[in-house]
């Protein structure tokens, strides 16, 4: 089934970046100082942010661990994370404070943007940017990609710049590979002439920006905002091209992935190959971070309200959360499958050394979903994990149990501050808080 990719097609056309490529030596660990936290020249290894977002919630009573603080043990639904206990913290008892107007949609907007949904008839959209974009605007401006969104079965994704402005996730491992490591990418030490076409493409983008400016003058206020986004997108693309003309970032762990993923992952028995696709994409993502192509990623593995047929399940996920009787063994099995994927992602990040620490150490990863208990769309006892330590700033291996349904937005404030972002708070109206969770700060 593996369809090999044609080298010719990759190099074909305008998008071929480097010309004659000569292979040099990769940056060695010797360039890092002894702690591995910083480059020898004093530049600190950057903290990165990741989001793992899945649809349809959990079973809170089987999710929340027994014990608190530093003495706790994995719950039934966190069992797949065994062996990683020291790499993440569980935050339980929090509540999404924004109004629960639309099942799934309100929770999705509440946990990711801290704001209520804009509801216009049958059409909904986020009111405020999602956490990944708020963070990307702060820590993503110097890399080739400000952020990368992907997800094996993601649909439209939940990364928003603002109302009706989404960042669609990549759903194909092959396309994700091409985007980051295809034509134009150079690993550290790979030398090569810069293709003159890159500069020409940039001047074409300048012309496109002129067209956008002119059109802006003709339309109404709302449409100007949409064209502003187009303008920003073009400018970011221009920056990406400019970075291809520069020398690649020096990172010891950076290697071009040696295997190009499959073009297609056909369904098996009518079920998508969720695991295979997700793992291929996590592998690529880890290397994109290691090569400093981006510092912000979002894995929207499955979408809110998704009705996917999981391997082994007898009905779609969403339907099962509502209609499966009793203890919902099939829903439980799906949650376990999703946690297996969390474990894979964390292990993959941990496997990349960065000096004497790991890539995972230098990440702050938020793992959550759109509702707490899928059957009732509840927003209290919200399932939240944070993994990695954002370069030593987040406490790991801890169970923070809120006693009084604290605002879930406190997690985001904690995360942003750990990443070195001087945030005044997170959220809008009921969802807003200026406070972080001190217990999780180092």
């Amino acid at each position, binding site marked *: 089934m593996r369809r090999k990719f044609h080298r010719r097609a990759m190099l074909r*056309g305008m*998008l071929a970046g480097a010309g004659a490529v000569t292979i040099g030596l990769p940056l060695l660990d010797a360039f890092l100082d002894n702690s591995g936290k910083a480059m020898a020249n004093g530049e600190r290894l950057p903290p990165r942010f990741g989001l793992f977002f899945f649809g349809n919630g959990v079973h809170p009573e089987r999710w929340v661990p027994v014990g608190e603080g530093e003495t706790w043990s994995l719950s039934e639904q966190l069992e797949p994370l065994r062996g990683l206990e020291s790499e993440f913290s569980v935050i339980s008892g929090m509540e999404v404070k924004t109004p*629960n*107007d639309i099942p799934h949609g309100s929770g999705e907007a509440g946990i990711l943007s801290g704001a209520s949904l804009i509801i216009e*008839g*049958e*059409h909904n959209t986020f009111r405020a940017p999602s956490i990944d974009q708020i963070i990307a605007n702060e820590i993503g401006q110097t890399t080739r990609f400000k952020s990368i*969104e992907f997800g094996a079965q993601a649909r*439209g994704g939940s990364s928003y*710049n*603002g109302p*009706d*402005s*989404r*960042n*669609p996730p990549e759903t194909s491992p092959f396309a994700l590979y091409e985007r980051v490591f295809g034509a134009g990418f150079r690993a550290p030490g790979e030398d090569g002439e810069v293709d*003159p076409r890159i500069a*020409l*493409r940039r*001047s*074409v*983008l300048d012309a*496109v920006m*002129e067209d*956008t400016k002119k*059109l802006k003058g*003709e*339309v*109404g*206020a*709302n*449409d*100007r*905002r*949409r*064209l*502003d*986004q*187009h303008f*920003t*997108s*073009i400018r970011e*693309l221009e920056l*990406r091209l400019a970075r291809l003309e520069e020398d690649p970032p020096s990172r010891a762990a950076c290697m071009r992935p040696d295997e190009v993923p499959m073009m297609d992952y056909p369904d098996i*028995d*009518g079920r998508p190959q969720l695991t295979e696709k997700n793992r291929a994409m996590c592998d690529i993502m880890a290397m994109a971070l290691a090569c400093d192509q981006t510092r912000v990623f979002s894995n929207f593995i499955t979408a809110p309200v998704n*009705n*996917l*047929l999981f391997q082994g399940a*007898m*009905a*779609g996920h969403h*339907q099962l959360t*509502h*209609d499966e*009787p009793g203890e919902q063994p099939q829903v439980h099995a799906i949650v376990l499958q999703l946690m297996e994927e969390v474990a894979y992602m964390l292990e993959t990040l941990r496997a990349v050394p960065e000096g004497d620490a790991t890539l995972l150490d230098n990440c702050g990863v938020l793992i959550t979903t759109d509702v707490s208990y899928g*059957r*009732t*769309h509840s*927003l209290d006892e919200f399932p939240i994990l944070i993994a990695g330590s954002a370069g030593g700033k987040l406490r790991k291996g801890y169970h923070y149990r809120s006693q009084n349904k604290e605002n879930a937005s406190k997690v985001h404030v904690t995360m942003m501050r750990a990443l070195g972002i001087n945030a005044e708070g997170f959220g809008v109206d009921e969802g807003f808080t200026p406070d972080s969770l001190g217990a999780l700060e180092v």
Partner: protein
Amino acid sequence: MPSSATAGKIARIMVAFCLLGVVGSAACRESEPPAAPDTKAAISAAEHEPAPANLMRLTQAQYSNSIHDILGDDIVVPSRLEPDIRAGDFIALGAGKTTISARGAELYEQAAYDIAEQTLEKHSDAFVPCEPGSLSDAAKTEECAGEFVDLLGPRIWRRPLSSTERERLIAISTSSANTLGDFEQGLVFALAAMLQSPNFLFRAEVGLEESGTEPRALDDWEMASKLSYVLWNTTPDRALLDAASRGELTDDEGLTAQIDRMLEDERARHGLRAFFSDLYQLERLDGLTKAPELFEHISEEVGPSAREETLRTIEHLVFDMRGDWRDIMTTRETFINRKMASIYNVRAPAREGFAMATHPPDTPRQGLLGMTSILALYAHPVSTSPTLRGMFVRTKLLCQPIPAPPAGVDTSIPEPSGTAPTLRARIAEHLEEPTCAGCHNQMDPIGLGLEHFDGLGRFRSRDNGVEIDASGTLDGVEFEDLSSLAVAIREHDRFGVCLTRKYYQYATGQELPEGPEPELVVAISDHFAASDFDVLEMMRAVLSSRGFRTVAAPATQHSQSEADAAKEEVE
């Protein structure tokens, strides 16, 4: 109005003959379907709230169709572009809200170079009208690049270019050619610039500022694009742009002539398909998920085949028959291939491809609600869903909004039990819950009328071993099963006005509020009824109405929150 109805029938028969080439062209011209003058006058007199000034992004299909029409059918258009979003009922309305993400800009850039390279490889004969000679002859190279820009620029941007725009594209071409030492490579960059421009990717409908009146009339170029993308789902052809340059599209007679011409073009059939596919969300059939252990017929072929069945049947009714739209509910004629024939358990009408088949009169299967497209899409992967199917009828066929379910309630349906073996019985237990009953009583009884068709649309007489009872009532009209349910929907007083409302929104890009229909929609709907529910006549009325031809002046001021958000985005 029996006499006018009879005249309408005769006219439609004539048109059918005309399309079949049975009668001569003179007779055909005289047999234009008559529209009762009083309904036309009512449309002219009707009040309407103008659509807001709009900026529509080309949908993926529109992008691809436009490239094929302008640059050649043999151009392979990359399938990965900024995704469409659906707003309310339509992707076509989402196009007025969505923007272009960072990822989208990248995809459009890749597509632009890919398409531009193919164009120069395959069609330089057609689009490079001159010999530039040596690159060192700057004047001649520029002149030749200018001819290229003049040929393609106005087609791609659907309007004449300003001299600044023209010069800018020529400059891109010459500087790229000089850098790369190849004249045609310069043209590739100029073409890629046209294709990435918002002047191609968006179409603005802001009206003529100098008209000074409220609402503003759209100008000729805006009208050409709007007509074309609404009616054909693709870019204007040369004839339409020529008509625009002559000012004919802002003139009643000129507009009517163009609408008539466009409706006779093959592309109008594609446009009609695009409308119904968007309305019923048939694009989702590409990802149809059904558990193969329960549905042995399921394969990747099913979704697209089911969609084709529905669209062909609609196209046949509307264009070939000029039939009564309401017959879509009750017609036993359909167009199927072998795959669909096996699902319906009837003989395949053709060895290959699609052909007309007729469902026998002794089965309930008929019309739109007897098709796998609707029955399978509005169901679960393992079972039927009376709620989703009932909701389809309420919201798509009758335009009766159903509120979203409240969050924070347990919505589970009880499992089959001794006392409640069938889905009907289980739902009845469920509906004892008063918070659910209010809305579900609007939907579930209709959906239960379709229980003879499983989650893939296969006929069955039993559910869990018990004989299916598909009876119920729809707004006071009793039905036994789909045979009488289809008639009840056909005769429902919302059925005709609902299609009018949907098409009006699709065509104008205006989202109508819930509640009483706007006067203009009612007037067009009356005209639709007076034409014996001739869909083309309804479309004509919408496209020539002021609702289609005017927009409100664009809002000039940001609200404070918008200004803040806009600032944030630019930051």
